[in-house]
Protein backbone atom coordinates (compact mmCIF):
# COMPACT_ATOMS: atom_id res chain seq x y z
CA UNK A 1 0.00 0.00 0.00
CA UNK A 2 1.33 3.43 -0.95
CA UNK A 3 1.92 5.95 1.83
CA UNK A 4 0.01 9.25 1.95
CA UNK A 5 3.13 11.07 0.84
CA UNK A 6 3.67 8.72 -2.12
CA UNK A 7 0.06 9.22 -3.15
CA UNK A 8 0.44 12.99 -2.93
CA UNK A 9 3.61 12.84 -4.97
CA UNK A 10 1.77 10.76 -7.59
CA UNK A 11 -1.10 13.28 -7.60
CA UNK A 12 1.30 16.18 -8.09
CA UNK A 13 2.67 14.21 -11.03
CA UNK A 14 -0.83 14.02 -12.56
CA UNK A 15 -2.17 10.69 -11.25
CA UNK A 16 -5.87 11.39 -10.66
CA UNK A 17 -6.41 7.96 -9.08
CA UNK A 18 -4.05 9.00 -6.28
CA UNK A 19 -6.44 11.83 -5.40
CA UNK A 20 -9.31 9.33 -5.16
CA UNK A 21 -7.32 7.24 -2.73
CA UNK A 22 -6.45 10.26 -0.64
CA UNK A 23 -10.10 11.25 -0.55
CA UNK A 24 -11.04 7.76 0.60
CA UNK A 25 -8.44 7.95 3.38
CA UNK A 26 -9.17 11.45 4.63
CA UNK A 27 -12.72 12.34 3.50
CA UNK A 28 -14.50 10.24 6.16
CA UNK A 29 -12.22 11.40 8.97
CA UNK A 30 -12.60 15.07 8.07
CA UNK A 31 -16.33 14.82 7.73
CA UNK A 32 -16.51 13.33 11.22
CA UNK A 33 -14.31 16.09 12.64
CA UNK A 34 -16.38 18.84 11.04
CA UNK A 35 -19.71 17.26 11.97
CA UNK A 36 -18.65 17.23 15.59
CA UNK A 37 -19.08 21.02 15.69
CA UNK A 38 -21.07 21.99 12.63
CA UNK A 39 -24.36 21.34 10.91
CA UNK A 40 -24.09 18.73 8.18
CA UNK A 41 -24.23 21.17 5.24
CA UNK A 42 -21.50 23.37 6.76
CA UNK A 43 -19.37 20.31 7.55
CA UNK A 44 -19.68 19.04 3.97
CA UNK A 45 -18.89 22.50 2.58
CA UNK A 46 -15.71 22.72 4.69
CA UNK A 47 -14.48 19.27 3.66
CA UNK A 48 -15.18 20.18 0.03
CA UNK A 49 -13.17 23.41 0.48
CA UNK A 50 -10.34 21.48 2.15
CA UNK A 51 -9.92 19.15 -0.83
CA UNK A 52 -10.14 22.08 -3.26
CA UNK A 53 -7.41 23.88 -1.30
CA UNK A 54 -5.36 20.68 -1.22
CA UNK A 55 -5.58 20.58 -5.01
CA UNK A 56 -4.67 24.25 -5.40
CA UNK A 57 -1.76 23.99 -2.97
CA UNK A 58 -0.43 20.66 -4.23
CA UNK A 59 2.67 22.25 -5.73
CA UNK A 60 3.51 23.71 -2.32
CA UNK A 61 3.60 20.27 -0.71
CA UNK A 62 7.06 19.22 0.39
CA UNK A 63 7.16 15.47 -0.25
CA UNK A 64 9.74 14.97 2.48
CA UNK A 65 7.13 16.06 5.08
CA UNK A 66 4.03 14.28 6.38
CA UNK A 67 0.78 14.83 4.48
CA UNK A 68 -1.60 14.44 7.42
CA UNK A 69 -0.62 17.55 9.43
CA UNK A 70 -0.38 19.51 6.16
CA UNK A 71 -3.92 18.61 5.20
CA UNK A 72 -5.28 18.99 8.72
CA UNK A 73 -3.82 22.50 8.93
CA UNK A 74 -5.83 23.46 5.84
CA UNK A 75 -8.99 21.93 7.33
CA UNK A 76 -8.58 23.61 10.73
CA UNK A 77 -7.73 26.98 9.19
CA UNK A 78 -10.90 26.82 7.08
CA UNK A 79 -12.95 25.84 10.11
CA UNK A 80 -11.54 28.68 12.21
CA UNK A 81 -12.20 31.14 9.40
CA UNK A 82 -15.82 29.99 9.22
CA UNK A 83 -16.27 30.50 12.97
CA UNK A 84 -14.56 33.87 12.76
CA UNK A 85 -16.80 34.98 9.88
CA UNK A 86 -19.89 33.99 11.80
CA UNK A 87 -18.55 35.65 14.92
CA UNK A 88 -19.23 32.77 17.23
CA UNK A 89 -17.55 29.98 19.09
CA UNK A 90 -17.93 26.37 17.98
CA UNK A 91 -21.21 25.01 19.16
CA UNK A 92 -21.94 21.75 20.89
CA UNK A 93 -23.72 20.68 17.74
CA UNK A 94 -25.16 17.42 16.55
CA UNK A 95 -26.59 16.41 19.84
CA UNK A 96 -28.98 13.60 19.12
CA UNK A 97 -31.92 13.41 21.46
CA UNK A 98 -32.66 9.87 22.56
CA UNK A 99 -35.64 8.48 20.69
CA UNK A 100 -38.60 7.10 22.54
CA UNK A 101 -37.79 3.52 21.65
CA UNK A 102 -34.19 3.80 22.83
CA UNK A 103 -33.66 2.08 26.12
CA UNK A 104 -31.04 1.42 28.78
CA UNK A 105 -27.45 1.62 27.59
CA UNK A 106 -28.22 3.48 24.38
CA UNK A 107 -30.04 6.27 26.19
CA UNK A 108 -27.27 6.48 28.75
CA UNK A 109 -24.52 6.59 26.10
CA UNK A 110 -26.31 9.29 24.13
CA UNK A 111 -26.78 11.31 27.26
CA UNK A 112 -23.11 10.90 28.20
CA UNK A 113 -22.02 11.85 24.68
CA UNK A 114 -24.16 14.98 24.80
CA UNK A 115 -22.70 15.88 28.20
CA UNK A 116 -19.17 15.40 26.89
CA UNK A 117 -19.89 17.53 23.82
CA UNK A 118 -21.25 20.31 26.00
CA UNK A 119 -18.19 20.11 28.24
CA UNK A 120 -15.87 20.19 25.21
CA UNK A 121 -17.65 23.26 23.88
CA UNK A 122 -16.89 25.13 27.11
CA UNK A 123 -13.12 24.71 26.67
CA UNK A 124 -11.05 27.55 25.22
CA UNK A 125 -10.45 27.04 21.47
CA UNK A 126 -6.76 26.26 21.93
CA UNK A 127 -7.37 23.48 24.44
CA UNK A 128 -10.35 22.01 22.61
CA UNK A 129 -8.48 21.82 19.30
CA UNK A 130 -5.54 20.03 20.89
CA UNK A 131 -7.85 17.51 22.57
CA UNK A 132 -9.76 16.89 19.36
CA UNK A 133 -6.66 16.43 17.26
CA UNK A 134 -4.63 14.36 19.69
CA UNK A 135 -7.20 12.25 21.48
CA UNK A 136 -10.00 11.96 18.97
CA UNK A 137 -8.13 12.04 15.66
CA UNK A 138 -5.01 10.36 17.02
CA UNK A 139 -2.54 12.89 15.70
CA UNK A 140 0.76 12.85 17.55
CA UNK A 141 1.72 15.85 19.72
CA UNK A 142 4.43 16.92 17.21
CA UNK A 143 1.83 16.76 14.40
CA UNK A 144 -0.62 18.87 16.42
CA UNK A 145 2.21 21.30 17.15
CA UNK A 146 2.95 21.60 13.43
CA UNK A 147 -0.71 22.27 12.62
CA UNK A 148 -1.09 24.95 15.28
CA UNK A 149 2.36 26.49 14.85
CA UNK A 150 3.28 25.82 18.49
CA UNK A 151 6.03 23.92 20.26
CA UNK A 152 5.34 20.31 21.25
CA UNK A 153 5.62 21.17 24.94
CA UNK A 154 3.09 24.01 24.57
CA UNK A 155 0.69 21.56 22.95
CA UNK A 156 1.19 19.08 25.80
CA UNK A 157 0.45 21.79 28.35
CA UNK A 158 -2.78 22.69 26.51
CA UNK A 159 -3.78 19.01 26.40
CA UNK A 160 -3.12 18.71 30.12
CA UNK A 161 -5.07 21.85 31.01
CA UNK A 162 -7.92 20.90 28.70
CA UNK A 163 -8.13 17.45 30.24
CA UNK A 164 -8.21 18.88 33.76
CA UNK A 165 -10.87 21.42 32.77
CA UNK A 166 -12.95 18.66 31.17
CA UNK A 167 -12.72 16.55 34.30
CA UNK A 168 -13.77 19.51 36.43
CA UNK A 169 -16.74 20.37 34.20
CA UNK A 170 -17.93 16.77 34.02
CA UNK A 171 -17.48 16.27 37.76
CA UNK A 172 -19.78 19.22 38.44
CA UNK A 173 -22.49 17.53 36.37
CA UNK A 174 -22.52 14.28 38.27
CA UNK A 175 -22.98 13.89 42.00
CA UNK A 176 -19.87 12.20 43.26
CA UNK A 177 -18.86 11.86 39.62
CA UNK A 178 -15.37 11.23 38.41
CA UNK A 179 -13.85 12.52 35.18
CA UNK A 180 -14.66 11.91 31.56
CA UNK A 181 -16.68 8.77 30.90
Amino acid at each position, binding site marked *: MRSDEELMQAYIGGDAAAFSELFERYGPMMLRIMRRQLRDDDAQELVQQTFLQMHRARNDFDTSRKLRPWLMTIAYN*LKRELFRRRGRKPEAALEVEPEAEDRGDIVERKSEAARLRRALATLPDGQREVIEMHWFEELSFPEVAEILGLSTSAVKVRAHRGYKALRATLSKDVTGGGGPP
Partner: protein
Amino acid sequence: MATSSDIDALSSDMAEDMRAARELLGGGHQAELPPGLEALRKRVDADLDREKGLMATLRDRPTPQRIALVLLLTGLLVGVTAAAAPRGELADYPIVRMAIVLVALSGVTGVAIWRLLRPLHLPKPSKASTRLLLVAGVLAPTVAALWPLYGHVGHDPGHGMAFAVGCGRCMAFGAVMGAPVLALATLMRRSRVDGAAVVALAGVAAGLVGNLTLQLHCPVTDPIHLLLAHASLALMLGVVALRWR
Protein backbone atom coordinates in the same frame (compact mmCIF):
# COMPACT_ATOMS: atom_id res chain seq x y z
CA MET B 1 1.77 25.83 35.91
CA ALA B 2 2.02 22.25 34.72
CA THR B 3 5.50 20.89 34.24
CA SER B 4 6.52 18.21 31.80
CA SER B 5 6.75 15.63 34.62
CA ASP B 6 3.22 16.53 35.86
CA ILE B 7 1.94 15.94 32.37
CA ASP B 8 3.78 12.65 31.96
CA ALA B 9 2.47 11.47 35.34
CA LEU B 10 -1.08 12.18 34.26
CA SER B 11 -0.69 10.82 30.74
CA SER B 12 -1.77 7.23 31.45
CA ASP B 13 -4.98 8.35 33.22
CA MET B 14 -5.57 10.83 30.45
CA ALA B 15 -5.04 8.21 27.77
CA GLU B 16 -7.56 5.85 29.34
CA ASP B 17 -10.21 8.52 29.91
CA MET B 18 -9.83 10.06 26.51
CA ARG B 19 -9.96 6.71 24.73
CA ALA B 20 -13.34 6.19 26.38
CA ALA B 21 -14.39 9.70 25.33
CA ARG B 22 -13.32 9.03 21.74
CA GLU B 23 -15.37 5.86 21.58
CA LEU B 24 -18.35 7.70 22.98
CA LEU B 25 -18.17 10.49 20.41
CA GLY B 26 -17.27 8.27 17.48
CA GLY B 27 -13.86 9.76 16.69
CA GLY B 28 -10.74 8.09 15.44
CA HIS B 29 -10.55 5.69 12.59
CA GLN B 30 -13.86 3.98 12.12
CA ALA B 31 -14.61 1.30 9.58
CA GLU B 32 -18.09 2.70 8.94
CA LEU B 33 -18.23 5.47 6.33
CA PRO B 34 -20.14 8.60 7.34
CA PRO B 35 -23.32 9.29 5.34
CA GLY B 36 -23.18 11.86 2.55
CA LEU B 37 -19.64 10.98 1.51
CA GLU B 38 -20.55 9.94 -2.03
CA ALA B 39 -22.39 13.19 -2.76
CA LEU B 40 -19.50 15.13 -1.27
CA ARG B 41 -17.05 13.30 -3.52
CA LYS B 42 -19.08 14.31 -6.59
CA ARG B 43 -19.00 17.95 -5.54
CA VAL B 44 -15.22 17.79 -4.97
CA ASP B 45 -14.79 16.28 -8.45
CA ALA B 46 -16.93 19.06 -9.92
CA ASP B 47 -14.72 21.64 -8.15
CA LEU B 48 -11.59 20.07 -9.60
CA ASP B 49 -13.13 19.98 -13.09
CA ARG B 50 -13.64 23.75 -12.85
CA GLU B 51 -9.98 24.30 -11.94
CA LYS B 52 -8.85 25.05 -15.45
CA GLY B 53 -7.64 28.09 -17.36
CA LEU B 54 -5.02 30.76 -16.85
CA MET B 55 -6.07 31.89 -13.37
CA ALA B 56 -6.22 28.31 -12.08
CA THR B 57 -2.75 27.73 -13.51
CA LEU B 58 -1.42 30.85 -11.77
CA ARG B 59 -3.10 29.93 -8.46
CA ASP B 60 -1.59 26.46 -8.64
CA ARG B 61 1.97 27.77 -8.86
CA PRO B 62 4.09 27.25 -5.75
CA THR B 63 3.67 30.11 -3.29
CA PRO B 64 7.18 31.60 -3.78
CA GLN B 65 6.41 31.85 -7.51
CA ARG B 66 3.02 33.49 -6.88
CA ILE B 67 4.59 36.04 -4.57
CA ALA B 68 7.45 36.63 -7.02
CA LEU B 69 4.95 37.28 -9.84
CA VAL B 70 3.12 39.99 -7.88
CA LEU B 71 6.41 41.52 -6.76
CA LEU B 72 7.66 41.42 -10.34
CA LEU B 73 4.58 43.30 -11.51
CA THR B 74 5.15 45.85 -8.72
CA GLY B 75 8.78 46.27 -9.75
CA LEU B 76 7.78 46.64 -13.37
CA LEU B 77 5.25 49.39 -12.62
CA VAL B 78 7.73 51.28 -10.43
CA GLY B 79 10.54 50.79 -12.94
CA VAL B 80 8.48 51.95 -15.91
CA THR B 81 7.35 55.04 -13.96
CA ALA B 82 10.93 55.90 -13.00
CA ALA B 83 12.11 55.44 -16.58
CA ALA B 84 9.20 56.89 -18.53
CA ALA B 85 7.68 59.56 -16.28
CA PRO B 86 10.12 60.59 -13.53
CA ARG B 87 9.48 63.68 -11.39
CA GLY B 88 11.05 66.77 -12.96
CA GLU B 89 13.26 67.63 -9.96
CA LEU B 90 14.39 64.06 -9.27
CA ALA B 91 18.06 64.95 -9.70
CA ASP B 92 17.77 67.58 -6.93
CA TYR B 93 15.67 65.53 -4.53
CA PRO B 94 17.56 64.37 -1.40
CA ILE B 95 18.73 60.88 -2.33
CA VAL B 96 18.81 59.47 1.22
CA ARG B 97 15.25 60.56 1.90
CA MET B 98 14.12 59.09 -1.41
CA ALA B 99 15.84 55.78 -0.57
CA ILE B 100 14.32 55.62 2.93
CA VAL B 101 10.80 56.30 1.64
CA LEU B 102 11.12 53.78 -1.20
CA VAL B 103 12.57 51.07 1.05
CA ALA B 104 9.91 51.63 3.75
CA LEU B 105 7.02 51.56 1.28
CA SER B 106 8.49 48.55 -0.57
CA GLY B 107 9.02 46.68 2.69
CA VAL B 108 5.43 47.08 3.87
CA THR B 109 4.18 46.24 0.36
CA GLY B 110 6.27 43.06 0.25
CA VAL B 111 5.07 41.86 3.67
CA ALA B 112 1.45 42.66 2.75
CA ILE B 113 1.71 40.67 -0.49
CA TRP B 114 3.28 37.75 1.37
CA ARG B 115 0.44 37.82 3.91
CA LEU B 116 -2.15 37.98 1.12
CA LEU B 117 -0.78 34.97 -0.72
CA ARG B 118 0.17 32.99 2.36
CA PRO B 119 -1.07 29.42 1.85
CA LEU B 120 -3.63 27.77 4.13
CA HIS B 121 -1.37 24.86 4.99
CA LEU B 122 0.68 27.12 7.24
CA PRO B 123 -0.52 27.93 10.76
CA LYS B 124 -2.82 30.91 10.65
CA PRO B 125 -1.19 34.23 11.62
CA SER B 126 -2.85 36.13 14.44
CA LYS B 127 -5.57 38.65 13.68
CA ALA B 128 -3.48 41.24 15.50
CA SER B 129 -0.55 40.81 13.09
CA THR B 130 -2.82 41.31 10.08
CA ARG B 131 -4.38 44.41 11.64
CA LEU B 132 -0.94 45.74 12.50
CA LEU B 133 0.07 45.30 8.87
CA LEU B 134 -3.03 47.21 7.77
CA VAL B 135 -2.17 50.06 10.10
CA ALA B 136 1.46 50.05 8.89
CA GLY B 137 0.22 50.15 5.29
CA VAL B 138 -1.88 53.23 5.95
CA LEU B 139 0.64 54.93 8.25
CA ALA B 140 3.80 54.49 6.13
CA PRO B 141 2.71 56.84 3.30
CA THR B 142 1.15 59.21 5.87
CA VAL B 143 4.45 59.51 7.74
CA ALA B 144 6.27 59.97 4.42
CA ALA B 145 3.84 62.79 3.55
CA LEU B 146 4.28 64.54 6.89
CA TRP B 147 8.05 64.09 7.13
CA PRO B 148 9.44 67.65 6.93
CA LEU B 149 11.58 68.30 3.88
CA TYR B 150 14.35 70.86 4.28
CA GLY B 151 16.54 72.34 1.57
CA HIS B 152 14.40 71.24 -1.32
CA VAL B 153 11.33 72.87 -2.83
CA GLY B 154 9.18 70.87 -5.17
CA HIS B 155 6.61 72.09 -7.64
CA ASP B 156 3.83 74.42 -6.55
CA PRO B 157 0.64 72.41 -5.91
CA GLY B 158 -1.46 75.43 -6.94
CA HIS B 159 -4.54 76.84 -5.25
CA GLY B 160 -8.28 76.29 -5.43
CA MET B 161 -9.33 74.39 -8.51
CA ALA B 162 -5.75 73.91 -9.70
CA PHE B 163 -4.90 72.24 -6.37
CA ALA B 164 -7.93 69.96 -6.60
CA VAL B 165 -7.15 69.02 -10.21
CA GLY B 166 -3.55 68.26 -9.27
CA CYS B 167 -4.71 66.03 -6.40
CA GLY B 168 -7.20 64.30 -8.68
CA ARG B 169 -4.51 63.58 -11.27
CA CYS B 170 -2.18 62.07 -8.70
CA MET B 171 -4.95 59.95 -7.20
CA ALA B 172 -5.91 58.70 -10.65
CA PHE B 173 -2.28 57.97 -11.52
CA GLY B 174 -1.69 56.08 -8.26
CA ALA B 175 -4.96 54.16 -8.56
CA VAL B 176 -4.18 53.14 -12.15
CA MET B 177 -0.74 51.94 -11.07
CA GLY B 178 -2.09 50.08 -8.03
CA ALA B 179 -5.06 48.47 -9.79
CA PRO B 180 -3.10 45.76 -11.67
CA VAL B 181 -1.46 44.69 -8.40
CA LEU B 182 -4.83 44.58 -6.63
CA ALA B 183 -6.31 42.54 -9.49
CA LEU B 184 -3.42 40.08 -9.76
CA ALA B 185 -3.07 39.58 -5.98
CA THR B 186 -6.82 39.03 -5.62
CA LEU B 187 -7.02 36.59 -8.52
CA MET B 188 -3.99 34.64 -7.32
CA ARG B 189 -5.34 34.14 -3.82
CA ARG B 190 -6.39 30.53 -3.42
CA SER B 191 -8.89 30.98 -0.65
CA ARG B 192 -12.10 32.98 -0.85
CA VAL B 193 -12.84 32.69 2.83
CA ASP B 194 -10.38 35.27 4.16
CA GLY B 195 -11.59 37.82 6.67
CA ALA B 196 -12.18 41.50 5.93
CA ALA B 197 -8.73 42.52 7.21
CA VAL B 198 -6.96 40.31 4.65
CA VAL B 199 -9.24 41.49 1.84
CA ALA B 200 -8.60 45.14 2.77
CA LEU B 201 -4.89 44.38 2.85
CA ALA B 202 -4.98 43.68 -0.91
CA GLY B 203 -6.24 47.23 -1.47
CA VAL B 204 -3.76 48.72 0.97
CA ALA B 205 -0.90 46.91 -0.82
CA ALA B 206 -2.16 48.31 -4.14
CA GLY B 207 -2.31 51.78 -2.57
CA LEU B 208 1.28 51.38 -1.46
CA VAL B 209 2.29 50.49 -5.02
CA GLY B 210 0.48 53.66 -6.13
CA ASN B 211 2.49 55.61 -3.55
CA LEU B 212 5.76 54.06 -4.73
CA THR B 213 5.10 55.17 -8.30
CA LEU B 214 3.93 58.63 -7.20
CA GLN B 215 7.04 59.06 -5.10
CA LEU B 216 9.04 58.75 -8.33
CA HIS B 217 6.57 60.61 -10.53
CA CYS B 218 5.02 63.56 -8.70
CA PRO B 219 7.28 66.61 -8.09
CA VAL B 220 4.95 68.24 -5.55
CA THR B 221 6.30 68.27 -1.98
CA ASP B 222 3.44 70.10 -0.28
CA PRO B 223 2.35 67.92 2.73
CA ILE B 224 -1.38 68.62 2.16
CA HIS B 225 -1.12 67.43 -1.44
CA LEU B 226 0.90 64.39 -0.35
CA LEU B 227 -1.65 63.51 2.32
CA LEU B 228 -4.76 63.98 0.21
CA ALA B 229 -3.55 62.66 -3.13
CA HIS B 230 -0.85 60.12 -2.25
CA ALA B 231 -1.22 58.77 1.29
CA SER B 232 -5.02 58.47 1.08
CA LEU B 233 -4.66 55.93 -1.75
CA ALA B 234 -3.89 53.07 0.62
CA LEU B 235 -7.06 53.72 2.62
CA MET B 236 -9.15 54.35 -0.50
CA LEU B 237 -8.07 51.18 -2.30
CA GLY B 238 -8.48 49.22 0.94
CA VAL B 239 -12.14 50.26 0.97
CA VAL B 240 -12.47 49.46 -2.74
CA ALA B 241 -11.07 45.96 -2.13
CA LEU B 242 -13.60 45.39 0.66
CA ARG B 243 -16.49 46.43 -1.55
CA TRP B 244 -15.17 44.35 -4.45
CA ARG B 245 -14.86 41.12 -2.44
